[in-house]
């Protein structure tokens, strides 16, 4: 169970860091962002793929940190990027047939 605890801690830490970072970047009142942020989408894809499909505790932890960073952004940001990251991670899992959450 230690690995799941590590994943949760890194995901929560990533989310908090993402929240702090995005509030620093965007101080304006809430806006529903329609723009797709490519660098953040890449971070999200790498994060979710590593998190679910790497099969290694350390890589998965890093993955969940990155995934949490994008998902934890302030409301209005990081939603599409998270969705793309999750979908690609599921596709990679299906293609590789790697066990989920080693």
């Amino acid at each position: 169970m230690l690995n799941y605890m590590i994943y949760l801690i890194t995901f929560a830490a990533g989310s908090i860091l993402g929240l702090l970072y995005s509030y620093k970047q965007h101080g304006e009142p809430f806006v529903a962002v329609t723009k797709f942020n490519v660098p953040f989408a890449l971070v999200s894809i790498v994060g979710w793929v590593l998190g679910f499909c790497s099969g290694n505790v350390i890589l998965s932890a890093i993955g969940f940190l990155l995934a949490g960073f994008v998902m934890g952004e302030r409301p209005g940001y990081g939603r599409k990027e998270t969705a793309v990251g999750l979908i690609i991670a599921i596709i990679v899992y299906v293609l590789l047939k790697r066990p989920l959450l080693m």
Partner: protein
Amino acid sequence: MAEILIQVIIAFLAGSLLLGLHRKVMARVQKRPGPPIVQQLIHSLKFFFKETAFPKTVSKVFYIGIVFILALIWVVGVIVGPVAKDSLLILFGVYAVYKIVEHNSGSSSGSPYGKLSCVRAVLSAATELPLFAAIVFVYLVTGTMNIGEIITYQSVHGPLIYSIPLAALMFFMLIITKSPYSPFAITKDKVLISGFETEHFGFLRGFMLFSEAIAWYVLLWVFLTIFFGPLNAVGYLIGMIVISFVTGFINATTPLLSPNHSVMTQITIGAICFAGTALMIFTGVVA
């Protein structure tokens, strides 16, 4: 010991994130952006560093002690459930004590809001009847109260949700009752500010939020374990997210019931499910 600590941390983190998701779902249904999912966790941690004040009207020893008892009973819930996979009866006991703590937490504050919430906690004990009935039906079908043995039974005979769905519905009603902003959450009616929590500040409120997160995780874990058979980590993750999502949707679209309506609704649903499940068992529909 290390296993208990790890499971408690998992329960706290997962429970907080799930409650955060619950708030987010409710907000989106109501066309609000809602707080970030991690906000509930940040809130819980924040309270531990806030200044703690003690109102003059409190019964001090009781007022402080009750939050530690609250945290302790849900830690016991983690030990009995995810760690030891022990008896469902102990978990029923944990829930019963939780109701008593809710009651005493309100009465120890000396606040009229807390006291009214304390009275309502007695009424809201109506949820314990369907919970007890659900546990009894699980026992009648599986022949055991032990969670580990119930998991083994389901790995052979399939998940219990297929054989006693109405018992699962009774348990699910308990989950709805325990979820934030539930139509049955009469102890935390906004008329009562925060109900029995109103007069608890600082680290005392931090312990309460810590307990709530663990309670949410334990209830979802028990529900998924005893009705959806042996699940792996991903199964639990998906199940917990789906239940948080569904309860969030229900709570966002349902007004809070008055205490008498809440109790009558719970007892009526419980009675229908009880009669239905009993009929299924005694007429041989359930093997």
